[in-house]
């Protein structure tokens, strides 16, 4: 099974891009979808209804949503594998610009809106720099010269990231993303998956730099995929 991790600020077009991906790959793979959000999300129900795919969501509540994503990711991989999925798509909440949700053994995709301002790539530098692919949406709303200027800003932050421009409502240009997805290797060993980046200093064991995925590897206030309440595990 392939793992795709989507990050990017709210309303950047993550779900719009994911919809196109599912549309284009659904004959080839069984796709499972997990949405992480803080208090409210509808993507799972929408995608379940639209494509008939297995979909789930997790609310992070008081925890950093990206941290929540890490805690539940190991469970989510088992969930999707048990369903026989060929691809697991994780859509992050996109609120924490400092934590990046990308892991090893996955394809990390950041979604940026071309109308979010010329300096927005600079503001979310870690989210772009650690991604494999930057999808720039809403290029239908800007001129070509602006598109090139925006691309240059992304290049300044991450010289090697693969940039794909799209009108995500129509799906133009996304054939390059589906091509990249087809070429992503399957997860080799889910228990060996770790975060790519170093999380910022704070209070939980992820904040403290423990990079293993799965709540089983952490202490403090934890989250499981299906548990409604937070779980506490002391050391």
């Amino acid at each position, binding site marked *: 099974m392939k793992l795709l991790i989507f990050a990017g600020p709210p309303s950047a077009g993550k779900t719009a891009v994911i919809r196109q991906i599912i549309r284009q790959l659904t004959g080839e793979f069984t796709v499972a979808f997990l949405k992480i959000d803080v208090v409210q999300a509808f993507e799972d129900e929408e995608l379940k209804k639209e494509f008939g795919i297995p979909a789930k969501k997790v609310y992070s509540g008081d925890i950093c949503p990206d941290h929540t994503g890490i805690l539940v990711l190991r469970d989510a991989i088992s969930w999707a594998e048990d369903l026989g999925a060929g691809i697991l798509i994780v859509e992050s909440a996109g609120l924490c610009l400092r934590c990046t949700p990308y892991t090893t053994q996955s394809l990390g995709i950041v979604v940026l809106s071309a*109308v979010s*301002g*010329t*300096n927005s790539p600079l503001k979310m530098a870690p989210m772009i720099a650690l991604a494999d692919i930057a999808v720039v949406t809403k290029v*239908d*709303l*800007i*001129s*070509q*010269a*602006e*598109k*090139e*200027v*925006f*691309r*240059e800003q992304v290049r300044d932050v991450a010289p090697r990231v693969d*940039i*794909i*421009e799209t009108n995500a409502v*129509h*799906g*133009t*240009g*996304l*054939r*390059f993303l589906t091509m990249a997805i087809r070429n992503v290797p399957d997860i080799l060993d889910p228990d060996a998956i770790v975060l790519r980046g170093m999380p910022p200093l704070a209070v939980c064991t992820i904040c403290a730099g423990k990079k293993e995925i799965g709540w089983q590897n952490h202490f403090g206030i934890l989250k499981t995929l299906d548990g409604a309440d937070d779980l506490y595990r002391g050391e």
Partner: protein
Amino acid sequence: MEPFTPVIITVLSGKTRDGSLEIFDEIVLRAGDTVSVVGPTGSGKTAFINDIEVFACKDTVTGRTVLVNGRIPPDEMVRDPAKKPIALITQNTKCIADLTVKEFLEMHIRARRIPDDSRVGETIALANEFTGEKIAAPMHMTSLSGGQTRSLLIADAITISSAPIILLDEVESGGIFKETVISTLKANNKAVIFVTHDPFLALLSDRRIVMRNGAVERIIIPGGREKKIIHLVSSMDRVLFKIREEIRAGTLLDGGEDIS
């Protein structure tokens, strides 16, 4: 110095909004061609030029395919805007870049990896030939009017993008000197495709593509048969232009002014 070798664009037909096939086999565009795209609101004019700009490959709503020099263009031409021989000036007349005109143009020059000699000044000077409201380097992109934005982007497409193919979506909106724009593009041997609702502009093209229901309905090649009417519309357009300028200048039109 033109960074692009000659480019021929071929548009292969797609389907109408109801899914039936379009009536043409292919539409070919070469340097120096002027083609207008006309049709009712919502008929697919913007979709047609967008297909060209993204090098559609049966992956847009219309199902059209666009070839460059007879072939599916290489990935790098599709993906790297600096390698793209096409510049599109969209229907939107606002720029969202939080930069001054000078910073914006400098950044575009940097993105194109071309020597930054005197291009910023040249671009602004050319843009000012297209608009009555003068643009200056320290102005903010977001503060430019619709006409100023259009003018600057068209000038940019000529001096910085150096694209041999220019696509214009309703260039007449925003009150710019549309005739100067078209004649400048012709003088630079560009292939120009423009969507328009303006009768005079439509008549200035060598070919007219008529859109309906998401598809090309007809391709008209007037070949001189519209000469008389062009003459008439041209003088009417000049009269209208003068009246518009008078009204803008705050004049009371009492019939005494010379508008012939």
